[in-house]
């Protein structure tokens, strides 16, 4: 006799009536807990927001990317009796800002990667951009994404790797970065969707659609590229606003696959707790990257001295002869952001200056990584100075490469370098 199998197969049945009675009792208890402790629940759910320096607003959750891309796919009226999906897009467009919360799980080879499971809070502002903070189950920040309209950049920060990456936004004209959701929606209305009907979620009557399109994020400003995406979007019938969204996707983007040994990963997300029409402070979109974080690059990035010098030249031309105070790209973005913040409109020069400096930042970062004794004096040297050392690094035992304030470059001995630096 296989006792283990026998015991495993010894089942019970349950009284359906009692099942329901007990369930009702549990549901009533849940409802009572919610109403009695609603403030506490808010605090526990939003502890991350409440403990951060940005506490001015009493907002809820996220998901701009999936929501607006989902909305973008609606091609017209949904039905006579149900949600009018064009109205959904219009309603979102009228909102000055909104936030939302989501849970994301990453799976590789059929197994969840617990360290990447995250609670995500996203803030959307049509004026400043998008910010997303993802924290793991212990509350530790695992990534941040800033998509900044005025700077024309998206910046993704990886605290675990102490790295960040930047992607320039595709729009050729920075003015386009301020377009509203409605303007974004129009070019994307050609997508197809499947109606899911209506149901009740958490006591709210909703109607849903499913959108499945491998190109759903193609050309979008979101920094991760997906191989396939399926989104099920549920809209509150009463308000015609998104109530919840579930997303299933597959990605081979190295930003994710760096954690999976290069294997493709599934990303599953549940998004809800939308808060519409919220006040978002500009400070939310200020980049906050530690100084010792390095730029994430790939093989296509140039680390060439010539391109670095050209970048510095372009920057100086845009800024009237000044060089950036640092060749840390985040510091450059912040420096430019300061100028942009005070401008009446978009500072196109600031955006171009950031873009111009990327090769120089990469080159500098490479020299630091190789321990080349690199020194950069951009905060003290301008293009007007004579024979001042802008940047120098070691190329051999007693030899340094020097870039002067006029961007001329020369190899000098260590003694000669000492003399030049003494004069500064």
């Amino acid at each position, binding site marked *: *006799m296989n*006792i*283990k199998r*026998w*015991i*495993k*197969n*010894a*089942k*019970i*049945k*349950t*009284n359906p*009536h*009692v*099942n329901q*009675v*007990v*369930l009702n*009792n*549990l*549901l009533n*208890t*849940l*409802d009572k*807990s*919610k109403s009695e*402790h609603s403030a*506490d*629940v808010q605090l*526990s*759910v939003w502890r991350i927001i409440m403990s951060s320096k940005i506490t001015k607003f009493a907002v809820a959750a996220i998901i701009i990317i999936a929501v607006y891309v989902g909305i973008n796919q609606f091609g017209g009226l949904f039905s006579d009796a149900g949600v009018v999906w064009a109205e959904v897009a219009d309603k979102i467009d009228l909102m000055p800002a909104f936030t939302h919360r989501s*849970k994301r*799980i990453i*799976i590789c080879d059929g197994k*969840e990667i617990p360290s990447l*499971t995250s609670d995500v809070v996203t803030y959307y502002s049509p004026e400043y951009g998008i910010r997303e903070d993802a924290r793991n*189950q212990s509350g530790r920040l695992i990534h941040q994404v800033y998509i900044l309209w005025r700077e024309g950049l998206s910046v993704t920060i990886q605290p675990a790797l102490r790295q960040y990456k930047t992607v320039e936004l595709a729009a050729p004209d920075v003015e386009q970065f301020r377009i509203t959701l409605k303007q974004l929606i129009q070019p994307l209305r050609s997508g197809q969707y499947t109606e899911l009907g209506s149901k*009740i*979620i*958490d*006591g709210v009557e909703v109607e849903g659609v499913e959108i499945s399109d491998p190109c759903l994020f193609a050309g979008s400003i979101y920094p991760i590229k997906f191989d396939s995406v399926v989104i099920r979007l549920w809209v509150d019938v009463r308000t015609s606003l998104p109530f919840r969204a579930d997303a299933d996707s597959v990605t081979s983007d190295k930003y994710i696959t760096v954690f999976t040994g290069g294997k493709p990963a599934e990303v*599953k997300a*549940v998004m*809800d*707790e939308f808060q519409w029409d919220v006040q978002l402070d500009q400070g939310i979109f200020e980049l906050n990257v530690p100084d010792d974080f390095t730029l994430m690059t790939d093989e296509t990035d140039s680390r060439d001295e010539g391109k670095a010098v050209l970048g510095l030249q372009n920057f100086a031309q845009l800024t009237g002869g000044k060089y950036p105070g640092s060749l840390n790209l985040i510091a450059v973005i912040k420096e430019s952001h300061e100028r942009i913040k005070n401008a009446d409109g978009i500072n196109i020069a600031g955006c171009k200056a950031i873009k111009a400096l990327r090769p120089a930042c990469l080159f500098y970062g490479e020299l630091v990584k190789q321990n080349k004794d690199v020194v950069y004096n951009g905060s003290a040297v301008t293009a007007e100075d004579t024979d001042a050392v802008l940047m120098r690094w070691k190329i051999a035992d007693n030899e340094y490469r020097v870039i002067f304030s006029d961007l001329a470059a020369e190899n000098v001995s260590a003694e000669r370098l000492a003399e030049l630096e003494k004069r500064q």
Partner: protein
Amino acid sequence: MLEDRLLVWRLRRGSRDALRRIYEKYRDDMLRIAAGLLSQTNSAEDVVHDVFLNFVRSAASFELTGSLKGYLTTCVANRARNVLRSQNRQRTVSLDDTDPVVSDFKRPDQWIICGEQFSLLSSALAQLPYEQREAVILHIQGDMKFRDIAKMQETSTKTVQSRYRYGTTKLRSILDGEVPK
């Protein structure tokens, strides 16, 4: 596992639908485990009801670190052990000294309906020392690892494995005579 993490996450945010799904998914398993640990089905029903009730009450601050089934099973086992202790104490002390139950909610009818096979098993389990019964039920029906059972019983993994071995050997000898081949 993935679904459970999502369900717990939603439950923490007050989702009735998530609670319903968790309850329907694990109700029968927990009742079966409780009934295997305790000879009396009434006590087993009370234990499971209280475990779910406590779970709901702590939902807002609940953090799932392992498997949900494992968590609920552990709660059922702990509560079953407490019930047994209090029943043993009741034989020598007054009822006023017994452990309070979480809820005084009265179920209208009997909840657990035992089939013949389970009734046979329940009678056989009642003949085992409690630690052996616990090791067998939690490992086979609760899918718990020996090291987790050892942690709960505050003993070594080897001891739990021995208890399991002795328990299943005794059950086999009891049931061999009862179960048709």
